[in-house]
């Protein structure tokens, strides 16, 4: 499923590139420089077809591989697309095995905050810089407390590196927040209005959650890129993976070629667990998106309610002013005051709706895309293994033929090739088993975190609702005697 959150567009569930992206596509394979586009410093004369949807404009960098295109990568590819500098899989092994992970959980002591957004520069080249503060007692960090300044593209760069290193091993790498051309442009242009302030706050909060999720992952916490991100005062600008959005990275790593794989290779699932889990995540995805849409609607309507209540309060005050019966006039003014306070309540509640629930749901919709990506990686690993087996078989047949033809030098080559492919088959099987094992562990951890996250957030949300009702009671209790006093 496409990583963009627009459910109504992504009806085709088995394609990894949906329409909204296809229109605003950038061709990565052409040149790395063409891919170097950051939302923050985009110049008006950038390349790429413009999309009707402002949020997607240049937001997703992807490699367009249509199913019929001749540029289609061969199924036997070695790893992620060339635009990402891959670290060969063999060298990176999970740094933590099961026991260590449990230990780490108990001694997890790291606090990260993203704060103090500051605008740097002017006009369309301006960007926001955020202060990232890490407080920890963990030994892998060089200091107890570190403060660094990072910009949005730095976060994206971090994610792209982590995704390229770990996703194909079955690790669920938390995606970075989405880019927003509209939001950023307003900020750049210098509009100091409420919506751009809200936008910056929304982004700051999302970046903070992103970092917290990333370091919660025991393997990612120890990754040198993560440590560098959190600690080093100067960070090299993400150049080769230049500011590609989280969704874009996901798509690149998953590659459209996978869609072909899935369609032509029916995996013999020997493990029902995987099939079951995949179905569960599919269902969860659908429901979370639906819930997210409803909550967004609620946020919107509550804001509206707040505005309308304020407007009514004013008109009630005016009515009170013109009422010539003194006691009634006073009561109406009191009513106006009550309504004004209630309007503030509604506004606060809508912020709670948003920051607690809506953002959490949005995060999880993106996380589930990452989870699904990881399952796809496993299928890819399986396919690779199968293909190696097929190749081995072919080499063996070729050798058998050469034995009859009596060409000794070619025979030697054939034998060598057989050995090579035997090795590849073994490696393929090992990789497949490793990724399966990793995914089981990752999914287990993910589900535990999901349960905890939802529990905590929902309880906090209900507490906010309780507070609202308590305030309402206070206000109306104060008003009632005033109403009764009308003589």
């Amino acid at each position, binding site marked *: 499923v496409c990583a963009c959150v627009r459910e109504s567009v992504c009806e085709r569930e088995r394609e990894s590139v949906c329409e909204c992206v296809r229109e605003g596509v950038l061709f990565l394979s052409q040149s790395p420089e063409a891919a170097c586009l950051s939302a923050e410093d985009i110049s008006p004369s950038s390349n790429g077809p413009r999309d009707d949807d402002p949020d997607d404009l240049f937001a997703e960098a992807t490699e367009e591989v249509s199913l019929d295109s001749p540029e289609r990568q061969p199924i036997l590819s070695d790893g992620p697309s060339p635009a990402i500098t891959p670290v060969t899989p063999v060298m990176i092994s999970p740094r933590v095995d099961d026991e260590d992970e449990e230990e780490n959980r108990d001694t997890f002591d790291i606090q990260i905050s993203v704060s103090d957004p500051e605008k740097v520069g002017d006009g369309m080249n301006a960007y926001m810089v955020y202060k990232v503060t890490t407080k920890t007692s963990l030994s892998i960090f060089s200091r107890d407390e570190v403060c660094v300044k990072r910009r949005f593209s730095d976060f994206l760069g971090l994610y792209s590196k982590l995704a390229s290193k770990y996703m194909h091993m079955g690790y669920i790498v938390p995606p970075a927040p989405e880019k927003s051309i509209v939001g950023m442009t307003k900020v750049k242009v210098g509009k100091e209005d409420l919506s751009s302030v809200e936008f910056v706050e929304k982004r700051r909060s999302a970046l903070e959650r992103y970092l917290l999720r990333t370091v919660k992952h025991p393997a990612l916490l120890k990754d040198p890129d993560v440590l560098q991100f959190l600690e080093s005062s100067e960070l090299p600008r993400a150049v080769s993976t230049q500011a590609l959005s989280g969704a874009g990275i996901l798509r690149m790593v998953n590659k459209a070629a996978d869609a072909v794989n899935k369609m032509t290779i029916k995996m013999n699932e020997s493990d029902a667990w995987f099939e079951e889990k995949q179905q*569960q995540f599919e269902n969860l995805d659908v429901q979370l998106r639906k819930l997210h849409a409803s909550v967004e609607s609620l946020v919107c309507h509550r804001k509206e309610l707040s505005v309308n209540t304020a407007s009514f309060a004013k008109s009630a005050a005016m009515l009170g002013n013109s009422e010539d019966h003194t006691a009634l006039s006073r009561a109406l003014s009191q009513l106006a005051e009550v309504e004004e306070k209630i309007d503030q309540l509604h506004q606060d509640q809508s912020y709670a709706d948003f920051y607690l629930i809506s953002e959490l749901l949005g995060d999880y919709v993106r996380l589930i895309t990452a989870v699904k990506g990881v399952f796809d990686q496993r299928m890819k690993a399986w396919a690779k293994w199968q293909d190696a087996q097929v190749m081995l078989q072919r080499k063996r047949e070729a050798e058998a033929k050469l034995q009859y033809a009596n060409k000794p030098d070619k025979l030697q080559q054939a034998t060598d090739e057989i050995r090579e492919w035997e090795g590849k088959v073994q490696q393929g099987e090992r990789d497949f088993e490793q990724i399966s094992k990793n995914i089981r562990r990752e999914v287990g951890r993910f589900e535990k975190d999901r349960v905890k996250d939802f529990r905590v957030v929902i309880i906090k949300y*209900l507490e906010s609702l*309780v507070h609202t009702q308590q305030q309402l009671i206070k206000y109306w209790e104060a008003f*009632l005697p005033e109403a009764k006093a009308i003589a």
Partner: protein
Amino acid sequence: MKQTFCVIFKKESSIIAVDSISCGPHCLMNVDLQTDATLQVDISDALSERDKVKFTVHTKSTLPNFKQNEFSVVRQHEEFIWLHDSFVENEEYAGYIIPPAPPRPDFDASREKLQKLGEGEGSMTKEEFTKMKQELEAEYLAIFKKTVAMHEVFLCRVAAHPVLRKDLNFHVFLEYNQDLSVRGKNKKEKLEDFFKNVVKSADGVLVAGVKDVDDFFEHEKTFLLEYHNRVKEASAKSDRKIRSHKNAADDINRIASTLYTLGTQDSTDLCKFFLKVSELFEKTRKIEARVAADEDLKLADLLKYYLRESQAAKDLLYRRGRALVDYENANKALDKARAKNKDVLQAETTQQVCCQKFEKISESAKQELIDFKTRRVAAFRKNLVELAELELKHAKGNLQLLQSCLGVLKGDT
């Protein structure tokens, strides 16, 4: 006084029947209207058919001019309008605040929604469909109850008015058990009405510009003008607020449904969590919808009613102002006639007629306006108190639900 009525609305060939409901006294806008035993009027029953509503008007009276002490007739909205218009057009009643006509029953929006629901039946689950149907039926019922209330208030006000209650047309309206054959206005008549209104409002501005010698009336004029406008605005704003409230409640409804599905699908401990929260939201949503409905009833309807009544009071002032101008003009004409010594008798009679008319109106108008204020204050007091009490009741209900759910959820972890 208790009333029971049954609502049956026919949707094409199928009949959606709703159980009969009993509701308390509907005279929201007035407080002391039921004390007089000589004439008691209420709407005891109502039937909603495709495009019309039939009200059963029930009268209890000890007055000698009625054939029986207790009787009922069936009336439709147009007949109420006919009655109201007959009051307005009657010169005798120029000095009274004519109780405002009830607004036309408007089920269009609700009917449209019900129809859309019927069309979309295939695309939603059975539970969703039943739930939405129930809600729409509740909405329909609420609008229905309101229109009954507003028609009843009109009749109660007439019955309580010392002069209007004796009106012959009113008695015919109450007693004549055949159709009054009052057709609605045709296009030509509606056009005439439109022009009449234009002329009237232009005239009204002219008349209002004339400064009144009498302080009381001058004050009332300024007051009513401003008050009417402010009530209009407050009424519109309160409607918008309540609509937003309903929208938010609808969202919570959808959220509750999705949470329920999540709860049934989830394989982790969260499933119980989701189910519990879904249940909670179902209940709180109902309360939120009730809050919006009560605000509508106690606040929005109050404002709407006083918008209409203040307009009727303004109309009274206009009629008096008109009579004053006529009187002054007649005086001037008389002076001129005397000066020219021509048509003096005619001018004298005209002047006397105008004088009488003006004084008659002034006398009753003063009392009417004082009564209007008393009624208004009483109605606002009653409704504001009830509004506050209901808001408290609902907030406390909500709070209790939330706290008990929180208790269960926290206890589970």
